[in-house]
C-alpha cells in the first residue's frame, strides 16, 4: 500500500514552494486563517459543524447558522449539493438531494453566504465537488466567494495534483483552499497536501465516506501526529466524529473537530427541534474545549 508516489503524484511539485510563498499575503486577512491561528496561539481547539446549504430551505439554513454560532461553532462548513456526491454517506446524500430538489445551486449558496455575512463574522467554508466550481469558472468562483464573504472551500474530489489552478486563484483572491488527507496517505502525499492547503488540512478519520461511526480509529492519533510534524497548517479531523466523547478524544491531538452527519441526521429526524441541535453543539464544544 505505502509505496513511493508514482508519476502522477510528483507532477508539478516543483512549482509549489513559490506558490506557497505568494499565498501568505492575500490570505492574511482571511477570517478562517486568522481564527485558526488565534486558536492555536491560545491553545484552544476549534469546533466546525457541517450542515447542507438549502436542506429545508435557504432561510432555515440562515437561522441554523446563527444557532450554531450561538452554541459555540468556531467555523461553519456549508455543504453545496452535487448530483453525484461520491464522498458522502447516505445521511449527507439525502440532505444533498433534498437541497437540490429545493433548487440550491452554487450561485444561490453564495447569495446565502452574503446574507449570513450581514450578521456574523464566523468563518464560513464550502464543502462541495469540483464540477460545480469548474462550471462557475475557477477565477470567478474565488472572486465571487470572497465578495460574498466566504473564507474557504473544501473540494471532496480534488486531490492537490489536480488543484493547481484552484489554489492559484484562491490565493490571488484570498480564499483558503482546504485539501484532504486520509489514513492511506503517504508522507510524500502529506507534504503535497500541506503545500496546497491553506486555512486548515482536512484529515479524514478513516477510509470511507461521511457518516456516523461508533469509535475513533486507534491509528488516527498517529496519522494526525505525522501531519502535524510535517506542517504548521492546522489539522481538523472529520468523517465519523459524531459524539462528544469522540470529539474530546480527537481534540487531544488535532487542532479542530468537524461534525457533519450526526448533525444533519438530527435535522433530518426533526427539523423543528432546534433546541436539541443547540444542546448537541454545546456539548460538542464543551468536549472539544476539554470541559
Amino acid at each position, binding site marked *: *500500500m505505502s509505496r513511493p508516489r*508514482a508519476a502522477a503524484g510528483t507532477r508539478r511539485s516543483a512549482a509549489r514552494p513559490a506558490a506557497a510563498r505568494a499565498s501568505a499575503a492575500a490570505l492574511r486577512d482571511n477570517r478562517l486563517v486568522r481564527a485558526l491561528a488565534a486558536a492555536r496561539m491560545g491553545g484552544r481547539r476549534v469546533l466546525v459543524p457541517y450542515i447542507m446549504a438549502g436542506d429545508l430551505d435557504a432561510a432555515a439554513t440562515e437561522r441554523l447558522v446563527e444557532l450554531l454560532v450561538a452554541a459555540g461553532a468556531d467555523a461553519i462548513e456549508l455543504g453545496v449539493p452535487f448530483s*453525484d456526491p*461520491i464522498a458522502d454517506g447516505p445521511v449527507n446524500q439525502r440532505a444533498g438531494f433534498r437541497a437540490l430538489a429545493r433548487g440550491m445551486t452554487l450561485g444561490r449558496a453564495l447569495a446565502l453566504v452574503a446574507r449570513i455575512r450581514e450578521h456574523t463574522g464566523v468563518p464560513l467554508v464550502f464543502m462541495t465537488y469540483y*464540477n460545480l466550481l469548474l462550471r462557475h469558472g475557477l477565477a470567478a468562483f474565488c472572486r465571487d466567494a470572497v465578495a460574498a464573504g466566504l473564507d474557504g472551500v473544501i473540494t471532496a474530489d480534488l486531490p492537490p495534483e489536480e488543484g493547481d489552478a484552484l489554489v492559484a486563484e484562491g490565493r490571488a483572491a484570498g480564499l483558503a483552499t482546504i*485539501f484532504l488527507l486520509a489514513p*492511506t496517505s503517504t508522507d510524500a502525499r502529506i507534504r503535497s497536501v500541506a503545500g496546497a492547503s491553506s486555512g486548515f488540512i482536512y484529515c479524514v478519520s478513516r477510509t470511507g465516506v461521511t457518516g456516523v461511526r461508533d469509535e475513533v480509529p486507534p491509528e488516527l492519533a498517529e496519522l494526525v501526529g505525522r501531519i502535524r510534524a510535517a506542517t504548521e497548517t492546522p489539522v481538523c479531523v472529520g468523517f465519523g466524529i459524531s459524539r462528544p466523547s469522540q470529539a474530546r478524544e480527537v481534540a487531544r491531538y488535532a487542532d479542530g473537530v468537524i461534525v457533519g452527519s450526526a448533525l444533519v441526521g438530527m435535522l433530518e429526524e426533526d427539523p423543528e427541534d432546534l433546541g436539541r441541535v443547540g444542546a448537541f453543539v454545546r456539548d460538542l464544544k464543551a468536549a472539544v474545549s476539554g470541559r
Partner: protein
Amino acid sequence: MRTVSRKARAELPGRFGVYGGRYVPETLIPALEELETAFHEARRDPAFTAELQRRLRTFCGRPTPLYLAGRLTEALGGARIYLKREDLLHTGAHKINNTVGQVLLAVRMGKRRIIAETGAGQHGVATAAAAAACGLPCEVYMGVDDMERQALNVFRMRLLGARVIGVEGGSRTLKDAINEALRDWVTNVRDTFYVFGTVAGPHPYPEIVRAFQAIIGEEARRQIVDVEGRLPDCCVACVGGGSNALGLFYAFRDDPAVALVGVEAAGRGLATGEHAASLTAGSPGVLHGAYSYVLQDAAGQVLPTHSISAGLDYPGVGPEHAYMKDTGRARYVAVTDEEALDALHLLCRTEGILPALESAHALAHLNTLAPALGRDKLVVVGLSGRGDKDVHTVAKAAGEDLGDRR
C-alpha cells in the same frame, strides 16, 4: 490567471490533451497509484501476458471472427460491411476482454475481493464470470431501475456466484451504481479491487481498459488485411462509456486514411433532451474521476439520461474519446432508439444475427454511411454484443408482451 498550460497537461500521464486526470477523494489516490504500478509491472511480465492470452483463447473464445455481412451490404447498397463479432464471446459481449484482464491483475496484487458497477448487466455478468473463474468473491452494484429492466442479467450474476447490490440513490441507473461502487472502494480500499467497466473513470482506468480492449482492433486490423489486402476506409462502433469503440479504434489510430466514427444514443431525439449523447450534446466537466464531456445543466449538475439501450445510458464518456473528438481523429454522431431498433431488425433478417441494442446503434449509422461511402469502400463495424438480453425490450417496443416479464 495562471492555469496549467494545456500543452504541459497533454504530456502528463493520465491525460489525453486536457481530458482525463484523477479527480477522486484522497483516500483512493494511493490505491490508484498502486494499481497503476501493478498494471505496468504486469504488462511487462511475460507470465501475466501468457496467462491472459490463454484465458482469452480458452475461456472467452478469442479470436472472434471478422464476418462479411454480404446481405446487409446488398440491402444498404454501398460500402462492403464487415462485422467484428464480439457478440460471439463468452457472456455475450466485449466486456469479458477487460474483466478477465482486471481480475487477473487483482489476483496478482493479492486483493481478496472484487467489486464492480453495471448498467445493462453485461459488465456485471462478465465480472462475475471472471471472478468465479479465479475464485474471488464478487459484489456488483446496480441501479434498482436497471435491475428491473435487466432482470435476466441480475439472475445470471447470481448464478455466477456474485452478490448484486441494488442502488436506490440518485437516478437509480449506471451513474449511481458507479457512485456507490466508488464509495465501497473508498471504504474497503485495502483489500478490494474495483473492476471498472469502461474507458472512463480516474487514471489509470481509461488506460487499463483500453489496453485490455485493444485486442478487438488488433485482430480486426490483421483480419481485414488478410481478406481484403488493405485497411478499411472506416471503423464504426457505439459509444456509451466508450470501451468497445476505443478497443476497435486504437489499432487504427495512426492510420489517417481510416475514418473512425463513434455512435452515441440520441434516445428519443437530441431535441427532446432525453438522450445519452455526451460527446454530441454535452460539455466538458468532471464526473466519476475524470475531466471529459458530460451531460450537465447550467449549474454543473449531471443530467438524467435516456436510451433504450441500458449500456449506453450514461451521462459521461471516456476522456480519450473527448480528446479524439476535439482533435478530429474520430467523429461522433448519434442515432435514436427507433433507428437502433430498425437496425436490429434489419440485421436479424438479412444476416441471421441478433445484435445487442448497443451495437444496433453502430449498425443504424450504416444506413447513411454505407451508401455515402460507395461500393468500393470497406467498413468495419464493432458488433460489441449479442441481443438475447434485449429480447424483452425489443418485444415491448414492438407492442408485444412475452408474458414472463416480472
